[in-house]
């Protein structure tokens, strides 16, 4: 079937089997390889992308669900100043996620900071810490997010 959707800000039209899942589409049809794949059951969260601005497990999205929707992957987010707020915040907070979960963490933090620049620990647990990867130390993750929030806030105030 033909699917029209927006990928990283660009309109795309793709002929694809209706049930092909998004991580496979990103890799095979668009050569976007930075989104990891994990359990393929939505449990681990390492394949996270943003669907209309909301974080979702891409492994649970078949091609036909893309129609008319907008997908943002880490490749599309890298040109955004907010990407650098997050990376810099992570470095200042001594938080260094591994290659496997990096893209998911950044996008999840981005989605969280869009609604709350100073998230609570509970919000971090619910929105970012669920991504299942052994690399993560929760206290440095919280520190990294706090710094990223401050940087984003400062930039948005032109400081």
């Amino acid at each position, binding site marked *: 079937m033909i699917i029209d959707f927006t990928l990283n800000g660009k309109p795309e039209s793709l002929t694809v089997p209706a049930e092909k899942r998004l991580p496979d589409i990103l890799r095979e049809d668009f050569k976007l390889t930075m989104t990891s794949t994990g359990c393929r059951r939505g449990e681990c969260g390492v394949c996270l992308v943003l669907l209309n601005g909301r974080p979702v497990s891409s492994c649970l999205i078949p091609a036909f*669900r893309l129609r008319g929707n907008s997908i943002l992957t880490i490749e599309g987010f890298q040109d955004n100043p907010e990407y650098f707020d997050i990376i810099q915040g992570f470095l200042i907070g001594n938080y260094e996620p591994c290659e496997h979960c990096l893209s998911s963490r950044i996008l999840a933090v981005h989605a969280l900071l869009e609604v709350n620049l100073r998230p609570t620990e509970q919000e971090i647990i619910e929105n970012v810490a669920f991504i299942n990867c052994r690399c993560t130390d929760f206290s440095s993750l919280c520190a990294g997010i706090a710094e990223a929030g401050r940087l984003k806030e400062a930039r948005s105030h032109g400081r």
Partner: protein
Amino acid sequence: MGASGKHLSLVQVHYPKNLPALLAFYQKNPRSLICAGGTSLLQSPVWNAPKETIQDVISLSQIPELTHISRTESYIEVGAAAPISQILGIGRHVLSAALESALTRVANGAVRNLATLGGSLAFSDRWLSLVPVLLLLDVRLELRRQSGGEWVPIAKFLERHPLFRPGEMLTRIRIPLEEWNVQHFQIYKSHAFGPLNQLSWCALAQAEKGYLERFRMAVGAPAGLIIRNRELENTVSGKKLPLSLKELAPLQEQLQQTLENVQPRLSFIQKQLMTRTTYWFLLRYLTDLWEDLP
């Protein structure tokens, strides 16, 4: 599944634009698979089985009526295809605490942005997390067909075999906004117990002027097993608070009796979890500690 399998081209997807178009198509093609969030469908055996004939899939993503949430003084009405995160967005001060607790325990944030309340009800293997709470809250479900619709109490819906008649679908969920002093939801999904021994447990209690006016309790187990014992509830309801330990003894017996009735379907671990949680709840909230409640 992704790129593999020769059956890929056998899936045909339909995108009705509104509810009448959806019901008309479904009436003509009652064997179609319904996809709202897709989290239940993509893991269902029906979807993952090799397909020999064209499989019609109806995507609900473009039907605004099914994702709408509205509120009155006495209830919240949720479109069956509204994502769970959208329902949580209604806010803690409006949602029942037990329901909010159950909703936040559905998978993780990235799944809750896709998964829907309708999906949790339409697939009986997904009843574990939310259905005991919805049952205690006396939720009503709107079932629609092209020829009309009806509001069905959830208790009746759960007894139906099959859950849906041909061409019938779940369109709205009405959640009453009742006041309960104490609401507790607990889900046991530990690796220590294994996937077959999972259990969800929910209780609601309302006290007034030192008496326990109402008490409700339900338990969910895998494979669509939902247990609610109204006799037990009636035994507790109406009692003066705090309950004495002496009064708790017959309740335990009654609970044991309930367990015996469903014994073949509950494991030893599940029975332990159920009795221990119930006893803990009664001790924690309805005995000497009652006065500590906010």
